């Protein structure tokens, strides 16, 4: 928000002068109003650690994060390039495997991915789309000011409902601040997504039956599932509402079975179909994958995308971009060491206290080592794990996340907090559509770099300005 001189950066000037006229007590009042609005609407997420599954508010910070147009344009171009390349990679891996045959990426690395699913190799997908929806996590390097890609989420990225609800609450709570800017809208996301879902219907027609498949009410993202189904006007179904007969998917209605054409599934591959993947899954639909292979139903996102999310594969994404598109990557990766490679592993073991170590196939911030803040026992434990199962880990330097101003209720003033950014990209096979901004997650504790909601992170509204100020 501030330049080294202490002046607010140009695109923050107006917000800053407006907030400066508010009493801390008044601002605090507005924050409480925003919280109440989330509570009454039941915009919560479920914490699993508790036996009864407590519903918690996702903390919301009222100070918007502002991104000037020119900065955003570059991000947008970089994301579009990346999504198209990831899609081409998945087409290739589950198709001719050109990139493996010519050794641009080691065959063993790809085939050993936990989420590589032979079961869907060779399946022809409508319009060849694997990645309909991508949530690409970015951080802004506070040293260089560049946006850097932290990870790709092309399985079932979540959080977009908060982008839309945060904007709604923001405009209600601080209407004056909002009116002084020209902020690009975000509320077209559900319509754009619905358009994509509609064109995938295997039988064509202008009234396909589209359903969003949720694990159910106890899933931490259930609010989002029901919100999106409602916004798109499609059915919200659980696995038990669906049945597959002769490779066709039906839903159970009060007047018998009705055929389903397109499923936006928010259940991971492993739980999707007990006949193909985990046999103990009660969330999925027996026979669903066969119906998908028979092209009687379209699934969004495609099955098997996890191979592109693998953090070892991530290290090769800049290479894919050159390989498939013949272009230089617009957004860079974080430098990554693959522990699978003995010389890189040696480096990692030696420099462990300065590095972040991540398991390759996890998401949601689970199983990560933050070297600089870890005690000796934890470091030793991780050395052990790295030696035992090097393929399962990558290491990265600690990226100095940029900070943006947030309201610190205890101090009664604004204070800098570390943030990341997850924009949501939609791909229809021709064009990538990106909602301006995305979900800004905040590490609410001072100095903390952990933004995951499961670890006490919050979020804030993200404004992309129509201009630069």
């Amino acid at each position, binding site marked *: 928000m501030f330049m080294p001189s202490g002046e607010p950066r140009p695109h923050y000037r107006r917000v800053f002068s407006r907030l400066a006229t508010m009493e801390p007590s008044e601002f605090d009042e507005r924050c409480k109003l925003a919280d109440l609005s989330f*509570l*009454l*609407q*039941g915009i919560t997420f479920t914490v699993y650690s508790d036996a009864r599954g407590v519903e918690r508010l996702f903390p919301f910070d009222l100070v918007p994060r502002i991104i000037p147009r020119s900065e955003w344009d570059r991000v947008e171009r970089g994301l579009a390039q990346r999504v198209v390349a990831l899609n081409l990679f998945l087409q290739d891996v589950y198709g001719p495997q050109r990139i493996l045959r010519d050794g641009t990426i080691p065959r063993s690395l790809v085939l050993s991915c936990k989420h590589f699913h032979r079961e869907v190799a060779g399946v022809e997908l409508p319009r060849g789309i694997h990645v309909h929806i991508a949530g690409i996590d970015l951080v802004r390097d506070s040293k260089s000011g560049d946006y850097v890609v932290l990870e790709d989420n092309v399985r079932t990225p979540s959080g977009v409902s908060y982008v839309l609800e945060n904007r709604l609450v923001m405009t209600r709570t601080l209407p004056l601040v909002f009116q002084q800017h020209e902020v690009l809208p975000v509320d077209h996301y559900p319509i754009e997504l619905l358009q994509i879902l509609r064109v995938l219907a295997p039988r064509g027609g202008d009234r396909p039956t589209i359903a969003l498949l949720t694990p*159910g*009410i106890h899933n931490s993202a*259930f*609010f989002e599932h*029901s*919100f999106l*189904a*409602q916004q798109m006007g499609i*059915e*919200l*179904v*659980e696995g*038990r*509402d669906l*049945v597959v*007969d*002769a490779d*066709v998917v*039906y*839903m*159970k*209605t*009060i007047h*018998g*079975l009705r055929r389903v054409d397109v499923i936006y599934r928010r259940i991971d591959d492993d739980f999707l179909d007990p006949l193909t993947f985990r046999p103990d899954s009660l969330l999925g639909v027996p026979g669903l994958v066969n119906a998908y292979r028979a092209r009687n139903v379209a699934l969004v996102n495609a099955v098997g995308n996890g191979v592109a999310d693998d953090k070892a594969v991530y290290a090769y994404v800049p290479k894919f971009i050159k390989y498939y598109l013949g272009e230089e990557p617009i957004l860079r990766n974080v430098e990554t060491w693959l522990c699978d490679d003995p010389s890189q592993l040696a480096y990692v073991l030696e420099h462990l206290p300065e590095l972040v170590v991540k398991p390759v196939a996890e998401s949601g911030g689970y199983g990560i080592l933050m070297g600089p803040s870890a005690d000796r026992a934890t470091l030793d434990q991780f050395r052990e794990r790295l030696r035992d199962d090097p393929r399962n880990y990558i290491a990265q330097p600690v990226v100095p996340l940029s900070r943006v101003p947030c309201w610190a209720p205890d101090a009664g003033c604004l204070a800098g907090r570390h943030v990341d950014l997850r924009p949501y990209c939609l791909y229809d096979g021709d064009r990538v559509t990106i909602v301006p901004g995305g979900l800004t997650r905040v590490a609410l504790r001072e100095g903390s770099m952990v933004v995951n909601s499961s670890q006490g992170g919050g979020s804030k509204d993200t404004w992309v300005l129509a201009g630069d100020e």
Partner: protein
Amino acid sequence: MLSRIAESLFWIARYMERAEDTARILDVNYYMLLEGAGQPYRVRWEPLVIITGQHERFFAQYAEPDPRAVFEFLGFSEHNPDSIVECIANARENARAIRDRISRDMWEELNALYLELRRAQVDAMLSSGPHDFCTMVKAGCARFAGVTAATFPRDEGWQFLTGGQAIERAGMTARIVDVQYHSLLEGLPAGVEPDNHQWMAVLKSVAAYEFYRRTFHSRIDPQRVAELLILHPQHPRSVRFSIGRLQQALHAISGAPPETYRNEAERLTGRLYDGLKYDRIEDLFARGLHTCMTDVQRTCRAIGDLIARTYFYQEVTA
């Protein structure tokens, strides 16, 4: 409409009705019983527990049905699946699962009531008596019913809502009549007038006291109270009226013309409704009121099961 959604709507309506009826019964009878003269607790309070049908669970928890225990059990208890707080929590859980199918207003009213009950200080409530608590519940249920009527499309989902409410209400009124009649008239020596204010309480439990006054212009006669509660064609809480609404809802769902049936649930409903339309209160007394009311409750349970089998869990045939 998905079977699971129809089932959730049906149960939201049932739970809301159950919570509201329980609040009404508790509110009215609690204060009347406090004034009761000299009889031991068990005689005075036990009927309230019996009405809710959770008699065994109650005595597993409490030795005596004293006012505080009855209030706690009917109002808050986790050990009573039909306590008001549990009903509202269940209604909300069902609503949360089908949030995309109900209006934002409906969700917000139900959620607000749930949060209000969650915040209620049980001990403070228990010591100040149930009136404020019951008023809060009745108001919350009324707000929910109001926004539902104002915002819910009149489609099949609406029929499941009204059917769920009607079947719950019919069963509850039948139980109130049965238990109160039994306990108020039992052991009265011949020629002794029944206690007038207890019968007022019965009427008030189903919000029919003023209506009774307007209809009969007389002192309160137990047989007429029973007649109003069971057979009245216009009072919205009478058994007859509720079964009539249930029949309309079922016909609207299946498309069966009047005077016909397309499934067992409709056949049983029609048979029950005909009896209520053409019987006189004297006929019910001749057969035995207890027998008749037990029969109504049993038939309502059977209809509920048949609705589930017809619409929620039908055999899958592709």
